[in-house]
């Protein structure tokens, strides 16, 4: 079974930088569940391209400011 993808994210930091946004608030903003946001932050789940773009648009930053490919 393949391991988790080598993708890091800055969602937790970006949430705190944006008025200490809660996971639920971010989930509501992009139309996902809080549990999915938790899984994304923990690196257990890689969101779809659409979801990744929605997250970056919430924070007003580029995609690679939110997600980074770590070799």
């Amino acid at each position, binding site marked *: 079974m393949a391991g988790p993808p080598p993708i890091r994210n800055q969602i937790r930091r970006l949430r705190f930088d944006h008025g200490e946004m809660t996971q639920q608030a971010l989930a509501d903003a992009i139309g*996902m*569940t809080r*549990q*999915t946001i938790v*899984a994304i932050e923990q690196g*257990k789940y890689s969101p779809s391209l659409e979801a990744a773009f929605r997250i970056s648009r919430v924070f007003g930053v580029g995609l690679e400011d939110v997600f980074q490919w770590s070799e």
Partner: protein
Amino acid sequence: MSIRERSAWISLLLTSAIWGAYFWKIWPDLIDDGALAASTTGVFVSAVVVLVIVQIVLAILLAIAAAVLRRRSEEPPMDERDQLIDLKAIRVAFYAMSALLIAVSGLWIFGMSPLVMANGILASMVIAEILRAASVVLSYRLGA
């Protein structure tokens, strides 16, 4: 824990308990095929009907209890991760049921009675459901 994960736990535990008790009870009669009498068929049908009703009623009661106890009044619709977990679990159940049904159909070659084959088919469905629910639980715990 999301309500979908909670529902999977309920299904897993209920199915394992109810049908595990049934097969534990009937297993001695099944392996000793000569002991099966015509009246056993009626017992089998009655037991299946009763167990299905019991499982449905218990699932409804537990779902109501879970809905009353949960903090939020609305459960959000399935997102992409929920759908992915669901599809993976259905695929696991499909492959398991396919393999088991092929194995059960092979029992015919060995001259097993129709009642044994019927229980084999029933067991295949039960195992597939258990694997589906277990797959959902594991996916939510370990990440999809």
